[in-house]
């Protein structure tokens, strides 16, 4: 189409700057700076707390208790408001990478199995294993299911597509908070799904909540169910942009349905597939809502759950700890996404 002018294919820096300024500003201010600040804080620990014994009285009587001595602590705090420099101290402590403990296990354990047992008993590794398992099972299934649903719905008469699309994306649009609450009751041993499963499996003591394996399976199935609509929506919208002519030409050439999907549709929506894969992987790596929703903290913990636990569950907020886990989450996601990113980079190079 037309004669390509080399001057025009290259968007001038100045134009780019003005186009990108608003979104760039928003991201730097509200995400970039906080990430830097979180990174800095992950290297700091609180100052030593000077405590003193005091008498404490409440409606139930008087006892001797301990409080933080404010006079002594406030001075140190004012001098160094960030806290005590700790380097990678928080990163390597027992609740994170646990370098020291792992070394100890390595020396003390007799067999490799025992060593693995000990390591997976540490909170960070326990969470990492669940997180990776979840990613591994959910992401490909979400992509596949989403694509199949998109193809299927795309072949349905237009008139009834509206309600069908709504039904399909319901799992995604209803607040996960309550979605999982309702599901949690449904899968209870006495709930509609749980009770029928018992009947189906002919096991009156079957409970999806009591064993670790079943809890993991439940969460993974929920994950696929909850995320597939996302893949569907993006694929469906992308299918709408597939040009008509090549498809028609392929039909005339006698290409099978599968061949058409493989050679025309997929290459066309390829950028979108990459996008869905990236986002799904990332979201799944940050899994956390179903753990809360299904009250599965006992059997399944993820990295994001550890962060949540440090920030929300404790009376004392462990910001340093949460910051360290957050930074490691980012690094983990970067590693996980690396193959996709390298591919994007190659495409980016060839595109120009």
């Amino acid at each position: 189409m037309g004669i390509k002018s080399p001057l025009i294919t290259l968007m001038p820096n100045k134009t780019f700057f003005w186009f990108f300024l608003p979104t760039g500003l928003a991201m730097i201010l509200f995400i970039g700076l906080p990430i830097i600040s979180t990174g800095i804080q992950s290297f700091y620990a609180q100052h030593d707390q000077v405590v003193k014994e005091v008498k404490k009285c409440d409606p139930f009587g008087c006892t001797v208790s301990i409080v933080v001595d404010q006079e002594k602590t406030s001075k140190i705090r004012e001098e160094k408001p960030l806290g005590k420099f700790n380097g990678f101290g928080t990163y390597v402590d027992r609740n994170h990478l646990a370098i020291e403990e792992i070394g100890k296990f390595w020396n003390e354990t007799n067999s490799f199995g025992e060593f693995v047992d000990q390591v997976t008993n540490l909170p960070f590794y326990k969470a990492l294993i669940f997180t990776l398992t979840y990613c591994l099972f959910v992401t490909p299934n979400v992509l596949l299911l989403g694509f199949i649903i998109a193809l299927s719905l795309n072949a349905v008469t237009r008139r009834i597509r509206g309600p069908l699309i709504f039904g399909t994306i319901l799992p995604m649009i209803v607040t996960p908070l309550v979605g999982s609450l309702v599901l949690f009751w449904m899968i209870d041993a006495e709930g509609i799904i749980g009770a029928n499963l018992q009947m189906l499996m002919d096991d009156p003591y079957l409970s999806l909540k009591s064993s670790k394996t079943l809890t993991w399976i439940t969460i993974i199935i929920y994950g696929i169910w909850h995320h597939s609509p996302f893949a569907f929506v993006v694929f469906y919208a992308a299918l709408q942009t597939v040009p008509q002519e090549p498809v028609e030409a392929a039909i005339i050439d006698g290409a099978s349905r599968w061949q058409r999907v493989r050679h025309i549709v997929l290459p066309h929506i390829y950028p979108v597939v990459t996008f869905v894969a990236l986002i799904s992987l990332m979201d799944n790596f940050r899994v956390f809502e179903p753990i809360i929703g299904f009250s599965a903290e006992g059997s399944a913990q993820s990295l994001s759950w550890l962060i949540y636990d440090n920030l929300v569950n404790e009376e004392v907020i462990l910001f340093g700890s949460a910051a360290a886990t957050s930074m490691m989450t980012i690094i983990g996601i970067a590693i996980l996404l690396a193959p996709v990113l390298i591919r994007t980079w190659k495409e980016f190079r060839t595109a120009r």
Partner: protein
Amino acid sequence: MEYGLDKRSNALKIFNTTFIIVWLLVACFPFIWTFWGSFKVRADFFSRADWWYAITAFNTLLETGGKFTTDAYSQAWTEGEFWKASRNTVIVTFFVVTISLFLGTLGAYALSRSTRNYAFWILIAALIFRAMPHITLVSGYLFPFFQLQIWGILPTTIVVLVAINQPFTLWLLYSFFKTVPKELDESALIDGCSYFQAFRHIIMPVMWPGVITAGLFSLMLAYNDFTVTALLLNQENHTMVPKIQSYLGTNQHEGNLMWAVSAVVSATAPLFMLVMFFQRQVISGLTAGAVKG
């Protein structure tokens, strides 16, 4: 689009139909169940004795004298002040979607049309930004917001939601802009349009499916977000999700589960309208796009 010339085999048709029916059943059943249950009392819908209670409405009959009751709805909306939360959600959602799309389309267009290295690195940076868990981000905001005295108000939350959502919007729209052939804006530029004019008059009209998809996700985020809204809004400005959470009760104190259930059903209804409406837009956008593409 439909493959007009395609004569599909009956077997495929049957398979397709069965698949869709099964999927819809799996996708919708929990909500059909929720919808049905929202007209029952708690003892029926959340029974541990027997799930049949939710169908036979044993306790509902005892407590209210009928098989169906709308008490949960009327109480949640009035006593539970759900109307206020809905109003706030509408405001937040509207502004988040509009601003997100405005910023996102501009940025993503520039990224998709720039072939310099920095464009790629910006995309990577955006991805890393998105990897940051929201809860950590929001915890970081709290103190500065309190100090600047901008905590609790709607504009703060809107701006934060827009910013948090930008990486996703950028990537989504970037992928869509990539599917729009470059020749389209090039010919416009040759005709003497500025980049902004090409963007506004040539590219945007064929981008409807992408824009609506991005809008749908921004809407979902603003509509369903809990972390940001629960931590950054004061009670007067609470949106629906923190409100629903407050109906669930605490460890030591009983909540009002049926309010939560009816509130969820009420919150889903407007989404139905939106999806129905925009689904048509996606298709009509396509027809416009297909002609030019």
